[in-house]
């Protein structure tokens, strides 16, 4: 589905991502993990075309640079970290922007599936009752749900989620991740998620890419990548012992 060859992202002379290659196939849920500054978000930015990059990235065999913005948005939905409207739009208006690429274009053709897809997205994210609410009156977590609803309304084949659990309380984290795994069950879909939380990564990711200083340290089936040794090498600490220690604290 998505394939990256020798992908490099530079900010000035410093490389945030160097020479990463990646093959994402249908049905896979990739998690990109690594410490701060490892280049996770830059990699996700390059794959979602919001950050310039060197190397080749193809989607269904076609260079992603060759897609028009609308063509790309019909295939790839992105939940990024930085947003928040300046003016007081309603929940429905922001989520409805997900349908832009389906009705955009010069002649502005109508979007017959739009209302139904938007309804579905609002229902899935539990926002139906908040649809007329002003975005300014929502909590950070609720706002994040609105942007997730926007991505769902977009109805893409590939979802790129950059730290989707940010601002979310535990029940909604769980809801979001089960929602995405439910979404992934439809054939022809795939998910790429940048994650800080290693437990979530281990629980939901089917494939993992471990990054350190912009380079791929390991990638493959999540169980084989997120090992004690790999994590120790990347994070410079015994992550397993730390997590076990935390769990032990609860058992006492």
């Amino acid at each position, binding site marked *: 589905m998505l394939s990256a060859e020798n992908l490099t992202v530079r900010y000035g002379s410093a490389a945030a991502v160097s020479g990463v290659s990646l093959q994402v196939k249908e049905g896979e849920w990739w998690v990109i993990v690594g410490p701060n500054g490892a280049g996770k978000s830059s990699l996700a930015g390059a794959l*979602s*075309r*919001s950050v310039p990059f060197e190397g080749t990235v193809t989607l269904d065999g076609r260079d992603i640079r060759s897609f*028009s*913005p*609308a*063509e*790309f*948005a*019909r295939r790839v*939905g*992105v939940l*990024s970290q*930085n*947003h*928040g*409207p*300046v*003016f*007081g*739009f*309603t929940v429905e*208006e*922001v989520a409805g*922007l*997900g349908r*832009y*690429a389906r009705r*955009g274009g010069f002649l502005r053709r109508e979007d017959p599936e739009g209302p139904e897809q938007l309804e579905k997205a609002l229902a899935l994210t539990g926002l139906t009752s908040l649809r007329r609410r*002003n975005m*300014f*009156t929502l909590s950070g977590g609720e706002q994040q749900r609105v*942007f997730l609803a*926007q991505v769902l309304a*977009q109805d893409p084949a590939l979802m790129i989620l950059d730290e989707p659990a940010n601002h979310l309380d535990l029940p909604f984290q769980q809801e979001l991740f089960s929602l995405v795994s439910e979404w992934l069950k439809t054939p022809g879909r795939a998910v790429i998620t940048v994650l800080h939380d290693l437990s979530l990564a281990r629980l939901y990711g089917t494939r993992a890419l471990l990054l350190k200083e912009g380079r791929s340290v390991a990638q493959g089936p999540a169980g084989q990548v997120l090992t004690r040794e790999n994590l120790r090498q990347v994070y410079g600490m015994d992550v397993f012992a730390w997590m076990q220690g935390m769990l032990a604290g609860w058992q006492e």
Partner: protein
Amino acid sequence: MGGAALWTAGVLAVFVLCVCLGSVTIPLRDIAASVFGGEVSRESYRAIVTWTRIPRVLCAGIMGASLALCGAAMQGLLRNPLADGSTLGVSSGAALGAALSIVLGVSLPGLESAGPAAMAMLFSFGSLVIILALAWGMDRNFATHNIILIGVVFTMLVSALLSILITFSGEKLRSITYWTMGSLSGKSYEQAALLAVGLVLFGTPLLLQGRELNAFAVGEENALHVGVPVRRVKLTVLVCASALIGICVSIGGSVAFVGLIIPHIVRLVSGPNHRRLLPVSAFAGAIFLMLADLAARTVLSPLELPIGVVTSLIGAVTFITIFYRSRKGGVR
């Protein structure tokens, strides 16, 4: 579109009112007689209505619509509630052109009286080219913070040049003030027609960017992710808004506040959705500037106030009143 009909009726009503009122009040039937032919109660009324009032009120209406439309579009594009059509610096460039023409006595062969207007237009387009070239040189994406920064710096530079000119202007100071504060006195049908062509030519593309500007206002990166052709939309809005502002300034001088405040007032009433905001701002801007011009020529009659002074005064007071009322009634 019952709303559009209602707004059109409102604009027409205010238009007629502004043609009626002035240093002499002209009865409605004399206005009808002047326009459609017929007996007028005093012959001088016909000339006042036909050659003074109507072109002037037309200019005020079209200019108000243009300024407010540009302001709404720029605020959405730059995600900045302080932006308006002049944020890019084009209107100060235009004022500098007009001032240069006044001080140096530059004029076009055959169009002696149109010297300042022609120079203002020339300078506004020159400024637009310089600003866009600078923004393009900084990064290829016209990043909004760069645009705002370049606009501010450019405006400062031009203001400095304008101040130098004013220092040497002597008795021509009054004419320069006319350009920096704005005035619609002595406008002609030709000028109204030029404004109308500008509004149709550059305002229509702005009006068609409603969905795109909604996406921008929510977030530029978000706009990209939902499939908005970000760079093309930016260039369209920047060029069209600046060109339209350039035409406005070259005809009526730089009228402050309309482009800034009208979109805010409209947003408080009808929400931030640009598909409503853009057309409603244009209607409201037309009504506002026609009334402001009416005030400028009647309040201290026979003295006439610069229209920019009136728009700032009325605009500030109206905005503060509406803003506080709406805050009391809940967040909008």
